[in-house]
């Protein structure tokens, strides 16, 4: 078993501007956290903050999770159906973060 898993992360709705203006990223994250638990969405969000986020952290994060107004899709499914931050990230998962904060 490899020590990392490959995840495709996409940003939409203007959120890509915080991530080097790049919409799609292929990232390798560890299989396990430092306390030997499988890496979940909570871990991925903080990993993105540490490794990919380039500016204005407050527009992406709030209390160590995504801020209100940002939608998260895991393999095209609302993360609320998958357990939100507790979802265990699988190899080759596709995670999408969409900002809805552009107004009407």
């Amino acid at each position: 078993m490899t020590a990392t898993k490959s995840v495709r992360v996409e940003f939409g709705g203007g959120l890509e501007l915080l991530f080097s203006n790049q919409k799609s990223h292929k990232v390798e994250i560890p299989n396990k956290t430092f306390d030997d638990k499988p890496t979940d969405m909570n871990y991925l969000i903080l990993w993105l903050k540490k490794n990919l986020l380039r500016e204005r952290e407050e527009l992406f994060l709030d209390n160590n999770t995504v801020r209100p107004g940002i939608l998260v899709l895991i393999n095209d499914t609302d993360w609320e159906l998958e357990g939100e931050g507790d979802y265990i990230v699988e190899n080759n998962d596709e995670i999408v973060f969409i900002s809805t904060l552009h107004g009407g």
Partner: protein
Amino acid sequence: MSCGTAAEIQNAQGESVLMTKKPKYDRSNVCVKCKENTGNIVIRHVVYCKSCFDPFVKHRFKKGLEPFINISGQKKAVLKPWGNLTIGFSGGLGSTVLLDLITRCYYSSEEVDEKKGNNPRNDGIWKKVTVCYVEVSEVYSKMPGRTAEVRQFIQDSYPTFEFVPVRLSNAFDKRWWERISGGPLTKSDFAMRLDPDLAFKLLDDSSSTPLESLQAYFRSLPTQTAVHSSIQTLIRVLLLHIARSKNSSHLLLGTSLTSLAISLISGISQGGGYNIREEAQEDWTPSLTSGDGKERAVRLVRPLRDVGVKECGTYAWWRGLKVLGKAKWPGGRQSIGGLTKEFILGLEKGYPSTVSTITRTCAKLVSKDELVGICSICQRPVQGGLDTWKSQISIRSLAEVTPARLAQDPPSNSLISLLCYSCQGTLTSRSSKTISTAESEVMVTLPVWTQAKLVDRERMKGEIQDFLIDGGNE
């Protein structure tokens, strides 16, 4: 203890146990519509699959629009507006989704009735569609304009719709006004002083350009909240005038359920409670009090008022729509609107049904005060008995609270009687930090429609002057 979140709690024996997280959906994760597919999205505790989500959004959109297309009393099976359609486009998520839905539901061959073939209801309900974008960058010196980008987007994505750009400074442009409304204005400008009486006068020297007038107007506003609120008001009134000039029966805005809840709460907190129904939908004629009844009202509708920002975002993503993004106004986060937005978005994340409760509750509100006119700035109803009510709720010094003072009418050169409570507050409510007294002494040019109202009033005064009885000779 919070509800629905994982938290450490203590059981009867005093041991710490982990409270399990409550799912965000009511029953199973199977779609409530088709009852076959595994769900893809949760909308206010209800699960939908991707295939059922699209018809769900379209249904909500049509439900928010079609009952308001015909003027009341007409048969609802046939959708027959009396005029054209104007769509306000900001570049934001809501208006992007709105344009897509309008095109799909009424201007494409996609909507085919399986039994009857192509549905004649959907054969272009409005003869002509205009998409209007209001450029707000002039208010802020460092904000780049986006008209060219928006024009390109509309021309590429919706080539059959006419694109009409408007600048916020058009609100102070007499030539634009005369072209759009045909109503003449005086050569000099009417201007007001942002003091408690809101005194106005005709300026001797009116050499400033519309842009200078716009910038002076916004520089003089007392708070950030007033700046943002005034931008929104000017945009809405400009759009209404454009809609009227294009002979439109309807003006559609892409306000989502979430944005509407924000506007409602923010509007109430700025004194706009009397106009709460207009915040959701309004029928507008240029001058209600002096109208001869021939002018038909432009109906402003927000068809996405039952579609939350989550549905809009997911719809746009799954449809692959390009969202240009709405221009961010500096200082927005500290205004009442900005703080309300933060509050509502947080509420929607934890308690999504509460946001729709806000809009449904506001839709039931009815004011007991009668309507006495239309506000000369925001063009919304003005409630009767405003002066009496204000004198009862205001905290004043004892010297001011004398019967003689309370019985006094505002001076004849005061705008107070022509404005709604919300606009009065926007122009005069001062923050101790944001403005110096010197700035409040400056006369600022009024928006063109307010000037037109004053011209009209002065003309009427002149006509009836000979018939007035002098108060002293009574």
